[in-house]
């Protein structure tokens, strides 16, 4: 019986942490498929399609951060990878949902992120701010975003 439980637990671990991610985007060289997917879904929550400004996908947030990732020191790469892991599996740790972030519906993901933004736990707010900073840096790197927001910018 214990072997059966162990196998079920192992399959559950695989299902939660490893399986089910879409294939890697060919243009990304540094972030693995799982990380790209986490980043894309997070970026979509911050900058969805619609409105006068481009979406995260249109702004090329994932591609930009993939490229930026290659320039980071080793320590910062580790920290960012840990951040992705924490954000992705936060629902398992903090609840109340028991699915990883990328499997949540868009609305549930927004609620989940809002719980991080408004958390009474400083560490969660800090993690949220770190994620949002990364995504926003990627978003603003897009020429189309800069043109839309800062039309007067000239040197």
């Amino acid at each position: 019986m214990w072997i059966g439980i162990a196998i079920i637990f192992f399959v559950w671990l695989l299902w939660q942490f490893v399986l089910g991610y879409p294939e890697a985007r060919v243009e990304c060289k540094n972030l693995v498929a799982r990380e790209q997917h986490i980043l894309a879904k997070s970026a979509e929550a911050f900058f969805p399609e619609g409105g006068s400004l481009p979406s995260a996908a249109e702004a090329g947030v994932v591609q930009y951060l993939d490229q930026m990732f290659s320039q980071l020191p080793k320590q910062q790469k580790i920290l960012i990878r840990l951040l992705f892991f924490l954000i992705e599996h936060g629902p398992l740790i903090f609840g109340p949902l028991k699915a990883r972030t990328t499997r949540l519906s868009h609305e549930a993901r927004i609620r989940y992120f809002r719980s991080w933004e408004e958390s009474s736990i400083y560490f969660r707010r800090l993690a949220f701010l770190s994620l949002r900073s990364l995504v926003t840096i990627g978003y603003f790197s897009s020429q189309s975003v800069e043109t839309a927001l800062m039309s007067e910018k000239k040197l």
Partner: protein
Amino acid sequence: MSLSVSQPNVLEFKDYQGELSDTADMIVVGSGPGGAVVAKELSELGHDVILVEEGPPFRPNDFTPDAGASMCRLYREAGMRAARGKSMFPTMQAIALGGGSVVNSAIAVRPPDWVFEKWSETSGISLDMTKLSRNFQRVEDFLGIEKTNNDALHERNLLFKQGCDALGISSEPCPRNVKKCKASGECFSGCRAGAKQSTDVSYVPAAIRHGARVYTSVRAEEVVIKNRRATEIFGHVVEPFTGKVGYAVRLKARKAIILAAGCMATPQILMRSKGASGPSGHVGQNLQFHPGGALMGIWPHEINPWVGATQGYHSLEYLKQGYKLEVLWAPASLLVTRFPGFGHQYKKQLERLKHMAPFDGIVAATRSKGSLRLRGKSWDPDLRYELHPEDQKDIHKALISIAEIMWASGAESIIPGIHGMPPEITKDEMHVLVNHKFEINQTTTTCNHAFGTTRMGNDSTKSVVDHSGRCHHLDNLYITDSGVIPMSPAVNPMLSIMALADRASHLIHESMN
């Protein structure tokens, strides 16, 4: 006056073809405000000088306003360095020829006289403005420091002045080391206009003209001490941006070694050098910052805040109360992360960016203390910082003053970016900010002026260096970076660091003769 890196006495990473060994009268480590001044002055006084810098040189064309790329290329730990305490305090240190002067907003302001009285009390060294005035004047003249030109101010800076005027608060255009500012607001990512007179385009070329040799991409790692004398430096060539360690470097000093690698790197070099730290136990201790907080105001008319000098106006009204108020600009992507909301709400906030302007306050924080420790073999230190509750109150007071200036200049609302407060407040809701039980971990508090880790003093049991910057227990090892500052200069520290370095240069010269 620009640095020509094709000169034979300036080596870049690509120029190193094997182990490097050289000898000079003086080895100066670090090319920021502390080191570049010393290198120029000592070479001008006839000494044979080698200037060592871990970072690479940047030309105006190398800079980009893109925040991510700038952080990765120009800042240590890709701009993600932070001191730990009750909150995480981001603190950004440059890695470039010119050090912090390449990425600061070029504010070059003298501290008020009472700061020197406090320094004298703390250090036991007579450091009054009448004695230091000559050093300040020399630096100001050399860099051509002048108050921000009207043409460079633009609406964001003028709103600050308008608010201060309406409240009867003193304010002035910031004195800066800038020539022909293009008002691009890009100081923190490097000046693409080549207007900022950072040390890489001012003091370092002057040192070269007087015969100094400059080795960039070289990290000084250890000072060799023999019989109370610093004799040579061991280090390595380090590849720019990747940090990969290359050829060994050995530089011998006939007369003296001057460490000016910044108050984060100099203590690490001392700690890794046998016999260099001395018995005081104060190397890496007494780490101090100017913690800063900011608010984002929203006005009914278009401001286009990205236009105008990065920090063109400030108020010294509240220095004695412990804080200084300034106009601010930084890469927009970093400023907007405090905007509330998600998705379309977040995007709608961004659409209002052209109506916004951030003002900030920096706090002297004289009661707060931190420390620096080695982190294994890494050159990224472990930083701790505990903000004193009274200094925390000063940050809150500074934020309230900023809000009042914003209201007085016609702001219709403010985004406080403080956890536990509404995402946006109007003037009628000002009491919410005033009465808020402010805690430091409710907002992002940056700590970009760092000093004190090798502080100056008469008492060798409570300080690291003496009045000339010489390490108490050694005959010829000097420190001339922000680490020697005994306590807060109350204002942006660059000019004070340079004036103290100018003073130290002449004291070193005298002691050598």
